[in-house]
């Protein structure tokens, strides 16, 4: 046989790798990874950059009110529904995923001051400037009955309203705090302490008989619904606009203050706030806890929405848009994923609670990757290069300048105090905690 020469090639050279060719790489010891830290560091850097790239928190705006939106009310059972009350007395029920209104009701003359839904989600109450409390029925699709089921005529303007977490009881505030049974036309109990007029009242979600309220005389009041007398009053330097109880801790609440700070209190020790949350540059109008109790959101007159970790003094996130005006009300959705804000320019906005989070179902691999990058961020978060990227936010000029000014003012006052201390007798100018400085006192 003659020898035939054939052109022959190695299949490895021209065949593509298939999934069957992917071999399991045996895990090697750490000695074989001389650059392991460096690799993880770079991964962190990339993760942080990606985080900033994907940080697109704004989901949409709900347009439909004809006046500034004053109140927001979460639906107790449906995550898709939201109730909002405007300054012209109109109440709208929204379908959030569709971004449409399901029902519109002219509920009050003048402002709608407060709204709260029954835990069943079948009806809700509203109060307004017209000194009435109205009960409205609402179905699962968010259709509000045309006429109120029940109307209570009060003697004074009710400035806020909240519903009990378990029982058929609601509470209103005005010149005094009234606790109402749904079936009665007279309040079950009325609390008053001096001549203050209370503008905000909230039920404790954990110990449901507890009430927190904010009054005009710059005080935060605590009530026990079961008793006849209020519990305690704590007075700050400026007025508290709203309070929110931590849903995971029975005794912790956060107050939104007129001075642009938020104060977290342990109600068992009111001599000093647990924490002071600084970053807003103007009055904070509303605060709401995440249902996980780890964070809360606040909005205020500086047109910013900020998210604070409970145990941190500064916000981890700031949301704003060019058109958003003063924020009157903010709410954290019950699944802890979204934030809803209502502002003066008649719009309701939806935001993601975590700006860079991917919405929807994640593949396990994706989830692991996300978790890995989060773990890395936590691990290397203190490194300057990473920290810089992670903390970088654009804020409007007025906020930027105000923050700068705030910083300068603080520094100046610190300096002044130091000098004062240096030139006076030892001990005559004591060191006082910044948190303590904001307090006027605790009243028994």
């Amino acid at each position, binding site marked *: 046989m003659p020898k035939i020469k054939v052109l022959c090639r190695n299949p490895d050279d021209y065949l593509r790798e298939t999934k069957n060719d992917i071999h399991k790489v045996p895990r090697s010891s*750490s000695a074989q990874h001389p650059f392991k830290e460096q690799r993880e560091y770079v991964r962190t850097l990339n993760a942080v950059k990606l985080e900033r790239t994907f940080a697109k928190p704004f989901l949409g705006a709900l347009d439909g009110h004809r006046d500034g939106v004053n109140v927001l009310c979460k639906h107790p059972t449906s995550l898709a529904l939201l109730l909002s009350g405007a300054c012209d007395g109109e109440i709208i029920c929204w379908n959030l995923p569709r971004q449409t209104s399901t029902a519109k009701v002219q509920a009050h003359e003048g402002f709608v001051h407060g709204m709260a839904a029954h835990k069943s989600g079948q009806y809700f109450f509203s109060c307004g400037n017209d000194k009435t409390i109205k009960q409205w029925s609402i179905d699962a699709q968010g259709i509000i009955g045309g006429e109120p089921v029940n109307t209570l005529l009060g003697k004074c303007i009710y400035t806020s309203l909240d519903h009990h977490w378990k029982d058929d009881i609601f509470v209103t505030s005005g010149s005094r705090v009234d606790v109402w049974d749904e079936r009665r036309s007279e309040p079950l109990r009325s609390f008053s302490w001096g001549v203050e007029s209370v503008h905000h009242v909230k039920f404790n979600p954990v110990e449901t008989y507890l009430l927190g309220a904010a009054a005009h005389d710059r005080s935060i009041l605590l009530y026990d619904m079961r008793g006849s007398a209020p519990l305690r009053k704590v007075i700050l330097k400026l007025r508290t606009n709203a309070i929110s109880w931590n849903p995971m801790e029975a005794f912790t609440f956060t107050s939104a203050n007129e001075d642009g700070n938020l104060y977290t209190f342990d109600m068992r020790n009111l001599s000093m706030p647990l924490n002071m949350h600084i970053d807003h540059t103007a009055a904070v109008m509303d605060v709401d806890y995440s249902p996980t109790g780890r964070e809360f959101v606040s909005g205020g007159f500086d047109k910013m929405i900020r998210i604070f970790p409970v145990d941190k003094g500064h916000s981890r996130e700031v949301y704003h848009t060019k058109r958003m005006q003063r924020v009157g009300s903010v709410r954290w959705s019950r699944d802890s994923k979204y934030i809803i804000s209502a502002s003066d320019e008649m719009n309701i906005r939806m935001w993601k609670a975590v700006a860079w989070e991917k919405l929807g179902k994640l593949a396990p691999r994706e989830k692991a990757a996300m978790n890995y990058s989060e773990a890395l961020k936590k691990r290397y978060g203190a490194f300057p290069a990473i920290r810089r990227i992670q903390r970088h936010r654009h804020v409007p000029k007025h906020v930027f300048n105000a923050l700068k000014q705030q910083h300068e003012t603080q520094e100046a006052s610190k300096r002044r105090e130091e000098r004062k201390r240096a030139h006076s007798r030892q001990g005559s100018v004591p060191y006082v905690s910044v948190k303590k400085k904001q307090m006027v006192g605790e009243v028994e």
Partner: protein
Amino acid sequence: MVGAILLSELPLCERGLAAEADDEEIPSDDEDVAQDVEDRPHARLLDAISSMDGNKRLKHTLRTIHGQNVSEFGFKTQKVDAQTLMSEMMGSLHKSSSHSELKKQLKSVYTTTEVVDTPAPKHIKEKIQRSVGYEKTVKELSKWDPVVTANRKAEQMKFPLEQPTQKLINTHITFRPITALEKEIQAELAKIKPENRIPKGKLFTPAEEEEMKAMSLEEARERRAELMKMRAIMYTKASKLRWQNKIKSKRYRRGKKKEKLKQMEKELEELAVTDPEALMDRMNEVERKRLEERGRLRHMGGGKFARQAKVFSKYDNEKRQQIQDMLSKHKELVKKHRQLPSSSESEDEAEIPNVTAATTVHSKNVWMQPTVSSLASLSVSQNTSAVEVRDDEDEEEEDEEEAKERKFLASFDVDETDDEDDDEDDDEDDGEDVEGDDVEKSERSEEIAAVSAPPLQQVEAQSVQEDETQKTVEIESKKSGKKGRKQRGSTHEEEKRVAEENESKKMETNSQKAGKKSKKQRVSTVVDSTAPPEDEEVETSQSQENDADEFEEVQTKKKKKKSKKQKDTTAQETAQSGQEKHEITAPVISDQEKPELGTTKEAAKPKKNRKRGKKSKNSSSATETAISTEEKALMAVVKGLQTTTNENENPNTNTSKAKKGKTNKKTTDTNTKTDKIPETPADTLMTIAEAFDDDDVVAEFVEEKRRVEEEEGEKDKDLFVPGWGSWAGAGIVPSNKLRKRFIKKAQPQARTDNKIGHVIISEKKNTAVEKHMLDKIPYPYKTLDQMQTTLSKPIGRDFTSETQFRKNIKPKTVVNRIGQVIQPIDDRALLHGGQKRKAVDIELNTKKPTETSAKRKKKGKH
């Protein structure tokens, strides 16, 4: 809407209030506002005037907030001027005879009724109510504390908190027999006694449980007994150790130390046999440590501690002692190991004059001075007859010498002479004291034994000489062998001798004074003068070496100081008698003991030294570092090794070598103990400079700088690529010319340290990394080490196992399902603490699952 926008300038609630403005409740308010504002200062003035009489009046109040209520603080408090008293009203009753009934009633009222307290005012009452309510609530809320803290600390929280759990429980509960076999078995099972049957929801039969209970109790008892026993043992052991740690006895400590040393020696000997390399390592290690210490010069005495101690030492004997120790330590460490002389003895002989010459030249150099031991040996060898020739001049010299010696320590000593006197007095007066101090004495004798050992050269020199010298060597070797035992045994003898001395001290003479010279001084005088008679003296001393003489010599030395003081007063006759006494005592002592005796007497060398030794010996021995002890041990062993190896080779040199070993060991001993003679700071400074005389530091530095420049500077770049501009391939050698053309020469760099000769400024600094570097250690870490160890363990999938990776990346909060409402925490959490799980028990029927699975199968088929 417009109104609302305008009003939006105000905070929300005020907006609401302003918008209200329909004034139903307080119609007058709005009208009066303007006037009120005007009237306010006026009203305030009126208030001030009206309150001048001290009574509180109704103040002018301006109501700013709407409401029906009126402030409780605005009301007038009425002051009661005149109080009507009971007696005033009823006073007239006494006078009238009527109203007897009323009088009786009144009487009973006065005697029996308890007066009820006036009820508290409303605001106080409310306040009490409030505080009581608050305290109660606070107490109630505290039940949440453990849950809240647990949740805050929790590594991971899953939301919603109510998580269903899937738990299997016993399957037999719902078992129903269906088949015939099953029924049969069931019938059989039914016969089983109830105590052998597993009850519902349990894992064991009652009998089994009972058994287990019994077992566990027994076991528990056993275990308990065991534990008790262990604890008792532990306790006794611990207390014993504690007690041992607190022992202050010097003897005990010394014994312990010796034990340690012996142990070490033994170890080393063993090592020498088994693993010579390890031994060498060990030796090298010791040598290295010593060198390090030497380089560091930490014990120099110029430190902060020394300076401070200087101030306080005047009042604090301990401080002084510490300084002493430090200096001695320094000296020990700084001492250069003398080269062991090689075999030839002639060299050794020649060394003696060399050493003496060196002492003349470097009289101030510590390192160049002969060791005390060598001096001692010299002095020992001298003859008393020669000594007697000396007179008062020598004494003066001696004084000077001593003054020199003490120069450095002068500042530490309070009043040395006084102290010495005290010491002497102690020695003289208290025989008991002497007994009590026998520990010290034995120590002293030990030291003395060391002192008496001649330095190497001396021994070498002597070894060549006549029988007498050999004899002494023999004695020495014996001594070193029996040292430990003998010292202890001889303490009593020593005591006696000391007592004798004390007696004899009182009877000293001028003639004896001549003999009481410090070893050092004698040597220096010998060297300085280099007079022939004194040279002769040395020679004669060597040839004439007489034990008795030596003994006497030493004795006299001890008394030198004392006699110095007494020299003017004491008579010659008494001195002679004293001398006689010594001569009597000397022959009584047996030959073996002689050298030792001599050494014990030598203990009474200059009082200063002795006194210092008293305090420092023990402490110094205690403070001796591991290095020194190890060193000693090593040296001993090495010597031993050498001798053993040499034995076979050269039996002639055998004895001398052995001697060497032993003497060397002793010299090290003496160095640690006797070299406490301080010198002036100036001396030390000078000597340091000389010590580093050999090192050419400057040249080294220049070399280093050049190296750094070379390293950091630009290097020539080879840009040559074969094949560019010419052919390339196998067998083609690219031309050198072309290659040269492509080499880019490095440009000379302008370094910052070019003009500064004595500095190296590194040009290596890379600022690119700076932005990635931390200023301080971030929060959870406390030390850099912590952080590094944590970060060095990467969490990624590539570096760890999959399970570990999953553990590593566990997020802190997890929301389990999208679109699920998370309810606030409730009382159920209190029962379980932290995260609560709802137990959803899945009952598994023996049949049902099979049925369902069958169904499923069917469905799958269709």
